[in-house]
């Protein structure tokens, strides 16, 4: 494992067998990556929250159906849960 971030480049203008090289990221790429890491973290958090909200809504809906007198199998029959 390398300490310096690297990328694999295949330069298709070169003959086969001479195309692939492993090069360090440029400063611009490293800076861009840091921004992207923040964006990725925010998107992951949003996705996790979305999943948690959906699960909570599902649970609340099932509890309301149960309060109306539906059995577990009847709830499962209409919700697919």
């Amino acid at each position: 494992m390398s300490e310096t971030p690297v990328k694999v480049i295949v330069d298709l203008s070169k003959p086969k067998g001479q195309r692939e090289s492993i090069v360090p990221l440029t400063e611009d790429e490293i800076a861009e990556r840091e921004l992207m890491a923040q964006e990725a973290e925010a998107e992951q958090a949003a996705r996790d929250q979305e999943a948690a909200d959906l699960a909570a809504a599902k649970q609340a809906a099932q509890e309301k159906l149960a309060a109306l007198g539906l059995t577990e199998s009847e709830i499962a029959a209409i919700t697919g849960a």
Partner: protein
Amino acid sequence: MGMQLIETIEVTDTSAPLYLEFANIDQDGVDLLVTLSARAASGTPQYRSNYLWLNGLSSGFSAIRLSGNGSSTSSTSASNSYAPTMTGTSATASTFANAQYYISNYTSSENKAIALDSVTENNGTTVFMLIDAYQWANTDAITNVKIGGSTTFAQYSTASLYKITAD
């Protein structure tokens, strides 16, 4: 229509790259197909994400996504090319996500349409499946494709570039 493998990148045990890049792509095809078989080398989630760069740009993308994660489904929009196309280290050992980017009319002077079909793999409930429809708002012919950015690729991850031809 013909389909021709142009080149494959396979990650070795020592390289641990963040990005896999195809440069100076010939302009003699109609469409491009990029296939990705990917596993993260680090990080604990069960799936990780990658960006797609075209001609060195990660901007200009807009997308509609249909997805499922093992417990729910959703339809969302996005303004970037960020997509879970990589199995994470918490997923079952030796499993690799598979993804396909189909880039239509890559030499044209119009905005580009791109389809992404991906599934991360896991012998368990949590797995991310998606179909994305992208527009890349850029009229330049595509000469460079780069994928990566979330974390380093594990050994045996591969990316292949295919050219779709008219004959």
